[in-house]
């Protein structure tokens, strides 16, 4: 993990609020694994508002070109600042952070379940699993068609996928969790990675409660340091039969066994 300055090669607007930023960084491309994230300073040099760095999952890595990318949704001051950065600007970030995902021990069938911006860390998992000749299926759910442009990235992976939108403006109409429930039999021998809103994760936890699938959730929480010092980004995990303990998303995660997560 290092503090880095990377040149922005593109900051493409996918829709009103969705952007994909490509950054040149041999260090990240050499070391980073799927599931890891970078921590971005979202204000100009010397400016301290917004104050805290913002974590972003690594969306894609193109090792050959030393370029990685992040996919982000403009939500507040920090991401608004990022959306204004241009090709040639430098991005102040640190990384790679968090634990990577090791697909080696996994089943030959991998199911990715993403909701909204939760698709961001899953994309690289899908790409790497595809590269390992695993059978990969990506189920992605959105409110509307604002992520439509992302389908172009997805097509490049040459994997099977399903898109669902709540308003039916793109793909099937409905929730991605309902889609999984309706197709539960076809995903019987799959290892599952999911990332998205709490309600989606909660529903998936119920769906897979008494199934044998290995279900891994990539979680997000507000972070201050991102390196395991402040204990700000904790999530509640089951401990023993009735107990719980707090684990840090940044250092212990961001991937956790979904079964162990307690959603209060």
């Amino acid at each position, binding site marked *: *993990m290092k503090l880095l300055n990377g040149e922005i090669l593109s900051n493409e607007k996918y829709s009103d609020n969705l952007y994909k930023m490509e950054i040149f960084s041999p260090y990240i491309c050499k070391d980073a694994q799927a599931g890891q994230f970078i921590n971005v300073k979202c204000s100009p040099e010397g400016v*301290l508002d917004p104050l805290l760095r913002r974590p972003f999952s690594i969306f894609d890595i193109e090792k050959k070109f030393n370029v990685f990318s992040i996919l982000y949704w403009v939500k507040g001051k920090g991401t608004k600042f990022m959306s204004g950065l241009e090709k040639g600007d430098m991005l102040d970030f640190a990384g790679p952070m968090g634990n990577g995902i090791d697909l080696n021990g996994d089943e030959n069938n991998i199911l990715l379940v993403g909701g909204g911006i939760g698709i961001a860390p899953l994309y690289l998992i899908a790409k790497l699993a595809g590269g390992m000749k695993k059978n990969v299926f990506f189920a992605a759910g959105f409110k509307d068609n604002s992520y439509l442009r992302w389908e172009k990235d997805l097509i490049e992976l040459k994997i099977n996928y399903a898109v669902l939108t709540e308003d039916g403006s793109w793909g099937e109409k409905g929730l991605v969790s309902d889609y999984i429930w309706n197709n539960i039999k076809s995903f019987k021998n799959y290892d599952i990675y999911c990332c998205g809103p709490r309600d989606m994760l909660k529903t998936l936890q119920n769906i897979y409660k008494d199934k044998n699938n290995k279900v891994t959730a990539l979680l997000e*929480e507000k*972070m*201050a340091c991102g*390196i*395991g*010092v*402040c204990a*700000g980004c904790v999530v509640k995990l089951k401990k023993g039969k009735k107990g719980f303990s707090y684990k840090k998303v940044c250092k212990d995660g961001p991937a956790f066994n979904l079964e162990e997560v307690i959603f209060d």
Partner: protein
Amino acid sequence: MTKQDSLFSYETDTGRNGFSLSVRLGRIKLDNPVIACSGTFAYGLEYSQFYNTAILGAVTTKSYSLKPIEGNPPPRICETASGMLNSIGLQNDGIDIFIKKYLHEAEKLGIKIILSIFGQDPEEFRKVASRAADIKERIIAVELNLSCPNVKKGGMAFSAMPDEVEKIVSSTVSILNIPVIAKLSPNHQNLVEAAMAAKKGGAEALSVINTVVGMAVDIETFRPRLGNVLGGLSGPAVKPIALAKVYSLTREKILPVIGMGGIFSWQDALEFLVAGASAVGIGTANFIQYDVGKKIIEGLGNYLKEKKIYDINDVIGRLRA
């Protein structure tokens, strides 16, 4: 030390090179006045990926209690204008785990350790202090986190009650026999009284300020943005408050003060020194600029050279007010 870091060793060597950053707070002698604040640096391991943390004047550890504490329910962090609220709830593994597991790792890094401790009542403070007494040769001081709630007194913070401050300080001083620093809260009117009580109890120095009580509300859900409702505000937003507290305390010449609150640069650090602080604590800045401690030491060293000030002590408390 790496080659780059060794550049700064001259600052501690007044005899040869003339420029000195070393400061003294009672019996506590520091190579430079830059200290990492409790709760923002763990015990140094994570930051050692970014620079040699042994160059810091000292590192104050996370605050340890007698038994492990799970801390407050999330969310624990909320950003505000140029600041952040936290309600971590003093999550820690307990003093015994620190002694068994972490102390050795901090020592391997060459860090000068100030151990931060707290208790929910005076008795717990005494018990943690007795554990700390077993390792007193391995640490340079103990900092008492007096901003935590006193369970026996209805949850009121210890530092709000000067009598309690004196009691806790004097009992830990008698157990420890090494310098004791009292960390005080800015949230009460009687800061000077609390400081005098700490002095009476035998404290060597004061850490000022801890976080300022604050909150934030989510107007979509009408819920507080912190799981604990109230939290502690830190970062640049609190710097003027911290400076004023440091100034008003050091004017009273009660005890040497480690000034802290929103320091992000060497210029910020210098403001605290000029206002009267004998050393400075770097807290929230560590979360954003992981090598900020090193940058501040470098900046202060360069400032002395540029201004041809041979001793950092010549700027301490030199406010022209």
